[in-house]
C-alpha cells in the first residue's frame, strides 16, 4: 500500500488513513494532537521536523494517584505556595520539534508558567501554578500531546543526588590560574634583563605563587586525595607520581622564589593540573539520557488502586501494599507484586522481564508474577507477597547488587603506574646519590627535577582520551558504554554468555509456519478478515503474514478473551485460537506458540509462530567463537534447542529453564574459576547476571526505554556487529600502550635534562604541554582510525 506518511507521527498510514485539514493521519490519536496544536497555534511544530510526533497512549484513571498530595509532594522538586516545579523524564524527546513544543506548553494551558527542556537528559522542567493546573492535569496534558512522562517508583523512593559541578569549578580555577601565571612568567621566559622588570621580579613571582595555591589545594585536591588513599591501601596507583609531581613542583618553586634562586615552575604546575582535569572532564561526559543503573523501581508504578474492604477504591503507594490486599489493575498497567488473579481475563505481557513479547493468558485462580503488564481490560488480583519479596524483585536482594564486585578491577594505567612510579623513584634516588659525589649542592636540585619532569601527565591523559573518544565513536554507532573502565574490562573478557529470548531472538519479526490441511482461498480470506478485527498481538502477527485478500464485511464476529476468535462470512465459520477453543486434540507437541484454525467446526491445522533470530547472529557467533567461549542461558523450555543448535557453533553449551537467580549464580561460578565474563541479555530476568558479570551488555530495541542495570547498552540493530565493537575495544587498549611508549620518549628526553642538572623552567614549560598535546592528538587520530568502519551510523542525535 503506497500511502503518504502520517502528518503527525510519520508512520505509514496503512488502510485506515484519516484525512483531516488536507493532511493524512494514521489514527485518531495523531489527528487529535494535530488539532490541539493547530488550535493553539503551535503548528510551527511540524515545520521544524516532519513526522516528529507520537500518537498519545494513556488510559483514563492511570494518573489518579497524582491527586494524592503526599505522592505528588514527593515528586515535586520545589514548591512555594501555589508555584510548583517538577522535573519530568520524557523518553519521547528526540528532536528540535520536541524541544520547541515542550517549551511552549504555556500556550496550551495558562497554568503553565514556564518550561525548559534538557535535551541530553530527555527531561523537561515545568514551573506551574497549582491553583489553575493540578499535577494530574499537567501529566494528562503532556500525555495528550504524545509526551507521556515516565513516572516511576524510582523518583518516589529518593531524590536524585545534587548535581556535582566540582570538576567544572576545578577546571575553571586551574585555567584561570594557568593563564595568569603564563602571563606573569613572560619576563622570565625572555630574560630581558630590563631594569624595571628586574625591580619587580619578586612581586611577579609572589603573584604567581598566590595564583598557584588554589591550583594545588583546590583543583589538584582530587589527585592528592587519591594518592593518599592509594598509599594507605598499599597500592601504587598512577595518582601517586602525579601527586608527588604536583607537590614537588609546588614546594621547589616556593623554595626557589623564597631564596631568590630562580622563578620556579608555577606555569608548568598549573598547566599540568589544567590538562589533567580536562582529560578527566573528557572521560566523564557520556550519555546522560541513558540510565545504566536501573532496577525494577524504574518500571514499577508509584501507586496502585486498592479495593477497600467495604467497597470503593483508594490509591495507595506501592510500598504500602500488603499481603492479602485486593488490587485493581488497569489496562496497560504493571502488576506490582506476585498475586492471585481473582476476576477478569488476563493477558500478561512479560516483555520487561523475559524479553518475550507474546502475552501469556491467565484465568481467575492463576498466579501472576510481578513485572508483567496487563494488556486487555481490567483485572482484580489479590496480593500474595509484598512488592520487595516477589519472585522477580527478590533478585535485587542478592549481594551482586549491594556490593561493588567490580571495584577490585585495576585499570591499565594503574598497573603501569605502579612500575612507572618505582622506576622514577629509583632513577631519582640514584641520580641524587651520584650528584652527592660530583657536586653535593646540586643533589637536591636533581632529585626534584627528576620528580618534576617524570610526572606522568601524558600517561595519565592517554587512557581518558583514548577510551573517552572510543565511547563517543561507539555511541554514534549505537553501542553505549557506561564508562571507560567498562571498556577496559570488555577488552579483557574471554567468555561470553547470551540470553536467548529478546537477545538472540527478536520480538519484532516472527516466522510463522502452517501445518495441517490446506485452507481454500475463500477460507483464507475469511481468516484474514477475522484476525484483522482483533488487536491481539498474535492476531496481528498472523494478519501480516497472510497473503493479501480483499477486506470483506464479517457477518458475525466474536472475540473470546484469552481463547480465540470466531467469525462468519461467505458460508465459512472460522474459529482461530487455542487448541481447547478450536477443539483440536491436545496431544500435539508444543513447539512454540500455536494458533489453531477450524472451518465450520472441521479442524484444519495450526500456525506455529516462533520468534526469529536476529539477522546475522549465526555469522556473529561463528566469529565470536574463534576468540571467546560461548554459552546460552535461556529462561524458556527446550523447544528451540534444535534451531538454536544450528545457529551456534557446535558444542556450545545451552542451558534451558534458567531462573533469574540461576543465571546470576552461573556467571558467579565462572568468575570463581577466574574467567572474565561478558553477559549479553535484555530483560529484568537477566538483571542479576548482568550485574554479576564483568561486563553486562543489555540489548535494547529502543535505547531510551527498558534496560536493566548494565555496563553497556547495545542497539539491537547493531547486534550482528558486536564482535567488531569488542575488537575495537581491544585495539583501543593497544593505542593506550603505544601512547605510553610515546610519552616514555618525552620522559627520557626530560630525564636527560633533569639528571644532568640543567632543567630550566622554560624547558619544563615547553616539554610538559608538548607531550600532553601530542598524546591527545595521537590518541584522537588513532581511535578515529580504528572506528572508521564500525557499523552503520544510527539516527541518534550526537552528544
Amino acid at each position, binding site marked *: 500500500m503506497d500511502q503518504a506518511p502520517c502528518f503527525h507521527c510519520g508512520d505509514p498510514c496503512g488502510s485506515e488513513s484519516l484525512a483531516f485539514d488536507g493532511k493524512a493521519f494514521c489514527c485518531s490519536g495523531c489527528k487529535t494532537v494535530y488539532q490541539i496544536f493547530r488550535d493553539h*497555534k503551535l503548528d510551527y511544530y511540524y515545520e521544524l521536523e516532519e513526522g516528529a510526533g507520537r500518537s498519545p497512549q494513556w488510559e483514563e484513571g492511570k494518573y489518579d494517584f497524582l491527586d494524592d498530595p503526599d505522592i505528588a509532594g514527593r515528586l515535586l522538586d520545589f514548591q512555594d505556595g501555589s508555584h510548583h516545579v517538577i522535573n519530568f523524564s520524557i523518553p519521547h524527546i528526540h528532536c528540535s520539534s520536541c524541544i520547541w513544543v515542550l517549551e511552549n506548553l504555556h500556550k496550551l494551558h495558562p497554568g503553565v508558567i514556564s518550561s*525548559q*527542556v534538557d*535535551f541530553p537528559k530527555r527531561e523537561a522542567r515545568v514551573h506551574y501554578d497549582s491553583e489553575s493546573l493540578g499535577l494530574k492535569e499537567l501529566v494528562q496534558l503532556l500525555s495528550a500531546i504524545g509526551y507521556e512522562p515516565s513516572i516511576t517508583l524510582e523518583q518516589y523512593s529518593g531524590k536524585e543526588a545534587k548535581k556535582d559541578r566540582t570538576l567544572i569549578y576545578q577546571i*575553571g580555577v586551574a585555567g584561570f590560574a594557568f593563564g595568569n601565571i603564563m602571563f606573569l612568567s613572560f619576563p622570565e621566559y625572555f630574560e630581558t634583563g630590563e631594569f624595571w622588570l628586574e625591580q619587580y621580579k619578586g*612581586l611577579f613571582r609572589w*603573584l604567581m605563587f598566590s595564583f598557584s595555591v588554589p591550583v594545588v589545594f583546590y583543583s589538584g585536591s582530587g589527585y592528592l586525595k587519591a594518592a593518599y588513599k592509594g598509599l594507605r591501601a598499599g597500592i601504587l596507583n598512577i595518582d601517586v607520581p602525579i601527586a608527588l609531581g604536583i607537590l614537588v613542583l609546588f614546594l621547589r618553586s616556593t623554595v626557589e622564589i623564597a631564596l631568590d634562586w630562580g622563578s620556579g615552575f608555577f606555569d608548568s604546575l598549573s598547566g599540568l593540573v589544567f590538562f589533567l582535569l580536562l582529560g578527566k572532564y573528557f572521560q566523564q561526559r557520556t550519555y546522560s539520557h541513558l540510565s545504566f543503573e536501573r532496577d525494577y523501581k524504574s518500571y514499577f508504578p508509584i501507586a496502585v488502586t486498592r479495593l477497600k474492604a467495604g467497597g470503593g477504591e483508594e490509591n495507595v503507594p506501592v510500598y504500602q501494599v500488603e499481603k492479602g490486599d485486593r488490587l485493581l489493575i488497569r489496562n496497560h498497567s504493571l502488576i506490582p507484586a506476585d498475586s492471585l488473579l481473582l476476576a477478569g481475563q488476563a493477558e500478561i505481557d512479560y516483555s520487561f522481564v523475559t524479553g518475550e513479547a507474546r502475552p501469556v493468558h491467565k484465568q481467575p485462580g492463576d498466579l501472576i508474577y510481578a513485572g508483567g503488564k496487563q494488556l486487555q481490560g481490567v483485572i482484580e488480583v489479590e496480593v500474595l507477597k509484598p512488592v520487595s519479596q516477589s519472585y522477580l524483585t527478590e533478585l535485587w536482594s542478592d549481594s551482586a547488587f549491594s556490593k561493588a564486585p567490580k571495584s577490585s578491577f585495576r585499570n591499565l594505567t594503574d598497573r603501569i603506574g605502579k612500575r612507572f612510579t618505582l622506576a622514577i623513584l629509583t632513577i631519582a634516588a640514584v641520580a641524587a646519590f651520584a650528584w652527592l659525589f660530583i657536586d653535593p649542592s646540586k643533589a637536591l636540585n636533581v632529585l626534584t627535577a627528576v620528580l618534576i619532569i617524570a610526572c606522568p601527565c601524558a600517561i595519565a591523559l592517554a587512557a581518558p582520551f583514548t577510551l573517552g573518544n572510543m565511547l563517543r565513536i561507539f555511541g554514534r554507532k549505537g553501542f553505549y558504554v557506561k564508562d571507560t573502565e567498562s571498556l577496559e574490562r570488555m577488552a579483557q573478557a574471554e567468555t561470553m554468555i547470551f540470553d536467548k529470548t529478546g537477545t538472540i531472538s527478536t520480538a519484532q519479526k516472527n516466522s510463522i509456519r502452517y501445518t495441517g490441511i490446506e485452507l481454500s482461498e475463500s477460507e483464507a480470506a475469511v481468516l484474514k478478515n477475522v484476525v484483522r478485527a482483533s488487536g491481539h498481538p498474535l492476531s496481528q502477527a498472523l494478519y501480516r503474514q497472510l497473503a493479501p485478500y480483499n477486506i470483506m464485511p464479517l457477518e458475525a464476529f466474536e472475540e473470546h478473551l484469552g481463547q480465540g476468535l470466531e467469525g462468519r462470512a461467505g458460508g465459512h465459520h472460522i474459529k482461530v485460537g487455542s487448541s481447547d477453543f478450536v477443539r483440536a486434540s491436545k496431544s500435539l507437541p508444543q513447539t512454540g506458540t500455536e494458533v489453531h484454525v477450524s472451518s465450520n467446526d472441521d479442524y484444519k491445522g495450526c500456525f506455529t509462530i516462533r520468534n526469529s533470530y536476529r539477522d546475522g547472529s549465526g555469522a556473529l557467533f561463528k566469529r565470536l567463537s574463534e576468540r571467546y567461549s560461548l554459552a546460552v542461558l535461556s529462561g524458556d523450555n527446550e523447544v528451540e534447542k534444535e534451531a538454536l543448535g544450528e545457529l551456534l557453533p557446535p558444542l556450545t553449551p545451552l542451558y534451558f529453564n534458567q531462573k533469574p537467580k540461576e543465571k546470576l549464580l552461573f556467571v558467579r561460578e565462572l568468575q570463581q574459576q577466574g574467567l572474565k565474563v561478558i553477559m549479553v541479555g535484555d530483560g529484568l530476568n537477566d538483571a542479576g547476571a548482568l550485574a554479576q558479570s564483568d561486563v553486562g551488555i543489555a540489548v535494547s530495541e529502543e535505547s531510551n526505554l527498558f534496560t536493566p542495570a548494565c555496563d553497556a547498552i547495545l542497539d539491537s540493530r547493531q547486534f550482528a556487529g558486536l564482535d567488531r565493537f569488542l575488537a575495537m575495544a581491544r585495539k583501543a587498549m593497544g593505542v593506550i600502550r603505544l601512547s605510553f611508549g610515546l610519552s616514555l620518549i618525552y620522559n627520557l628526553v626530560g630525564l636527560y635534562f633533569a639528571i644532568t642538572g640543567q632543567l630550566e623552567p622554560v624547558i619544563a614549560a615547553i616539554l610538559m604541554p608538548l607531550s600532553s598535546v601530542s598524546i591527545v592528538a595521537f590518541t584522537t587520530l588513532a581511535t578515529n582510525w580504528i572506528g572508521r568502519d564500525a557499523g552503520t551510523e544510527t539516527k541518534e542525535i550526537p*552528544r
Partner: protein
Amino acid sequence: MSVIYMLLAISVSVALLFFVFFILSVRKGQFDDSYTPSVRMLFDDELVKETAEEPSHDHPKQSN
C-alpha cells in the same frame, strides 16, 4: 614606577571579574546542558510575537 602596581592591580582585578562571572554562570546551571541551547536559539521568534499581539487563543488559524 608605581604605575606598575596599578596596572597589575587592574589586570588582576579584570581577570578576577571574569572568573567571578564564570563561577556565577556555572552556579546558574549554564554548564549543565550544553546541547539544548544550541537548538533553542534557532527557533523563530515570529510565532511568539504573533501571540503576544493577540493573547486569546480561541479561534483556530484558518490556513495551516
